[in-house]
């Protein structure tokens, strides 16, 4: 195969990604472009090596993407992800837990449609303490007090 075959294939695959939307054809397209570049530099490269190069290049592109580019893709919203939106939120203790009774914590902005939640805390807290949501337990929050 000639270098422009690979370049055409690469571009075709990248365009195909638009219609397939599975986001893995893209890397094969990038791999094909890379092989096209190699063939352009070394036109005597055999087809077997070209295909092998394509496989390796595609795998490499995939790994590079996940290694370096994915961490840059920050979550822009926690909409539709209740747990992610709530964990780490800080609230103020309204009623401290004692015995089997759970405490009550109030948040400045409602969490899951409610600004007051019952909570469980491993440490001891008093009214007015600032606590942070650690986990959910049904309609009860597991909170922690950070020093």
């Amino acid at each position: 195969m000639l270098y422009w075959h690979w370049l055409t294939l690469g571009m075709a695959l990248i365009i195909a990604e638009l219609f397939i939307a599975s986001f893995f054809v893209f890397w094969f397209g990038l791999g094909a472009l890379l092989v096209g570049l190699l063939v352009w530099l070394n036109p005597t490269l055999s087809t077997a090596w070209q295909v092998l190069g394509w496989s390796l290049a595609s795998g490499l592109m995939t790994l590079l993407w996940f290694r370096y580019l994915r961490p840059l893709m920050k979550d822009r919203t926690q909409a539709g992800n209740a747990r992610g939106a709530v964990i780490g939120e800080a609230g103020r203790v309204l009623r401290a837990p004692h015995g089997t009774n759970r405490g009550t914590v109030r948040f400045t902005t409602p969490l899951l449609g409610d600004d007051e939640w019952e909570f469980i805390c491993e440490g001891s807290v008093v009214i007015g303490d600032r606590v942070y949501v650690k986990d959910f337990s049904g309609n009860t929050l597991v909170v922690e007090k950070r020093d």
Partner: protein
Amino acid sequence: MPGTILALFLFALVVVTIGLGVRIVPQGSKHVVQRLGKYHSALSPGLNLIIPYIDTVAYKVTTKDIVLDIPSQEVITRDNAVIIANALAYINIVAPEKAVYGVENYVYAIQSLVQTSLRSIVGEMALDDALSSRDSIKAKLKAAISDDIADWGIALKTVEIQDIKPSPTMQHAMEEQAAAERARRATVTRAEGDKSAAILQADGRLEASRRDAEAQVVLAEASQTAIRKVAEATQTGELPVVYLLGEKYIEAMRNIANSANSKLVILPADLPAAVRGLISGLPAGPR
């Protein structure tokens, strides 16, 4: 040639591997990954990489709020009345792995829980309370269910009582009761009206009688004054009365003459004698 075939097969392997390993999870859902049949992780929204062949996406769970329709059911109140209630529950799956492994069918489980809890909560209330305190039912319902669904990684956002109404027979009885109450009020109002009217009429008659009596007194006083004045003018005892009577007699005669049903009026020739005859019983006055 063998090298090319090998390279092509290798390429096919790479394609399949990458195709199986790359997972895009849409915002608002999570994918539960099992590694060789065992829970491994929950994939967050975005681009994810799993290890092909050993990791599989076992469940795709929505993390958006789910609206559950709780079917209508008949509930018996504390005072043995039957009401029909249905509700809407808004739930959110906060821990997908608990939701899929903790219960076989969380939708059915929560529907059943809400139904049974609603029945027990309404069963402790009187009919009138059940019909009028939806907010308190909602709060109790939420508190009752919260602990039960904790193991399933589900948070109950709210339960809304959609419809709560008495059964048809109860509704009929209540309507009859309301109608009877209205009828009672109408009767009482009418009786009160009649009573007030009778009192007012009696008051009117009393006032009228009082005024009639006053009028007669005034008339008598006027006659007395007239007699006194005539007596003073004539200086005789009997004559004023005779004069006044004569005057009235003549006036009566004029009225008879003016009336439509009489055409002939005969006046006595000796009017004073006739008048005197009328009052012959009067004691003789001073001469």
